């Protein structure tokens, strides 16, 4: 059963097409990865799915319903959650309060403040931020900021979680922990769609992969299939060559 369906999604910025005729389906309960060279349109796709951008053409379906015109906060209520690549915690609040925002507003049923506080603390414990609950976010290190991003997204109890480059900048140990965490989240019933450049993690996590280049999907399948696809190799190598000749 497809939880998320993208149907011929297209988005351009001033003549440059960022996402071009993209169609894909993510099945409930799977971990799906979106990869591709820089500028391939992956972040734009996430912005389209979460509702921060409106597509020029195409539609988005979540659990069968057309959410193309639904505003971002309503999509959160329906169960779409995401993290951000450039971590942007709410700077005037503590760790606990950051997560509470999600608990307070991420559901259709309103939670009381004490209940939200309790649930937020629980989630923080889960991702390993339990000891930092009262800390102001400006003092957090990279790995903890990423944990906070995930905690905030989890606070809205998503059914689909969009993970935006969570592996970037992590040490191999931290990356292994992150992979385990993500698998744990999936085990609780959350479908995961992730963007990443760290191929080892993508290989460990993803059941299916789609490759984007210049906004178009050029391959889809298991990691192994895609890794051996000549079009994919060329897309990446082409980028490397272009980088190398500079």
């Amino acid at each position: 059963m497809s939880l998320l369906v993208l149907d011929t999604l297209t988005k351009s910025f001033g003549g440059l097409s960022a996402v071009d005729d993209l169609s894909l389906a993510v099945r409930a309960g799977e971990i799906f990865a979106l990869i591709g060279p820089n500028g391939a349109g992956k972040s734009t796709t996430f912005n389209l799915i979460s509702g921060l951008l409106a597509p020029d053409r195409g539609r988005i379906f979540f659990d069968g319903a057309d959410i193309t015109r639904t505003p971002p906060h309503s999509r959160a209520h329906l169960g779409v959650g995401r993290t951000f690549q450039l971590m942007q915690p709410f700077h005037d609040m503590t760790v606990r309060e950051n997560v509470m925002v999600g608990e307070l507003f991420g559901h259709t049923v309103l939670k009381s403040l004490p209940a939200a506080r309790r649930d937020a603390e629980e989630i923080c414990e889960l991702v390993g931020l339990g000891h930092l609950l009262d800390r102001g976010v400006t003092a957090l290190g990279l790995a903890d900021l990423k944990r906070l991003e995930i905690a905030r997204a989890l606070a809205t109890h998503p059914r689909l979680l969009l993970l935006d480059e969570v592996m970037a900048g992590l040490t191999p140990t931290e990356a292994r922990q992150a992979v385990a965490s993500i698998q744990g989240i999936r085990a609780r019933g959350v479908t995961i769609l992730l963007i990443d450049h760290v191929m080892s993690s993508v290989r460990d996590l993803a059941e299916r992969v789609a490759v984007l280049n210049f906004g178009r999907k050029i391959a889809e399948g298991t990691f192994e299939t895609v890794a051996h696809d000549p079009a994919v190799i060329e897309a990446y190598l082409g980028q490397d060559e272009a980088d190398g000749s500079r």
Partner: protein
Amino acid sequence: MTGRALVRGGLLLAVLAAVVVLPLWVNRTQPYYLQLSINVLIFATLALSWDILARTGQLSLAHAAFYGLGAYTSVLLTTRAGLPIVAGMAAGAVVAVVAAVLLGVLTLRLRGIYFAIATLAFSETLRVITNQVRFTGAATGLVAPPLLGGHRPSQYLVILTILLALTLVSWWVNRSRWHFAFTAIRANEEVAAVMGVDVVRFKVLAFAISALFAGITGAFYAHVFLFISPLEAYSLAVSVGALVAPIFGGLYTTAGPLVGAVVLRAGEEVLRSTVQRGYPIIYGFLLAAVILYMPGGLAGVWASLLARIPRPARRGARGEPAGS
């Protein structure tokens, strides 16, 4: 609540009550203080109502617009349509709210400096229109009927009630889930939206509440000072004062704007007697000084002072000194 906290709270209330009653008591021999107190309370209401909007990250320069709309609506309705003053004031508040919702919706996509300039343009456009059109009295202004027969002590109680209501609203906003919505929106609208916060609704609501109190205060001002003109009612000085006080006293809090307003207005009185015109120079100076040296305002200074006290029971509101 500990016994100590109760005693502290009780003392604070007693002091406040005394301060509030004092001008009334002294009025027999020194009516000046009652007049001054009314001015201070008007200023405090403007400051706190501005702050509520600021909590969503919308730093408006249009506060005077709602003040002026409240004033003009009430005066026009009471003089031309014969409505009682209470109705006039209520109508003033309503008109201000409608204008705020309009402005709020129009400026939804504008950020930072763009938003500020747009709100300034809105306020000044209103001033120019009011100044040109005969219906609103043009540059000569309008005369207003007196509130409660001009009885200053009663008027004082009216503005006090308005301020009290606003203080309760502000206090409640900061203690409820709204605080989380406002602060999240202020920090990052997109992330807030993605986490389920209805950004549009909260931004417009903040605008409406802010304008409601600015509008009713404007109407109050009109019926106390009995004369309004575009130059005063829509004056940039009103908008400036409304923003300097919270910045000076401590943004996004209930006490900050109030303390800032009282201190500033009292200081202004002192200055006004020494420097006739140009006394707003102190606002400019303070604004620059606060930005450069005291970004948290008085509240920030107070919090860092509290943090220095080496008792383990003393913590800032969130376990960390503000501004650290």
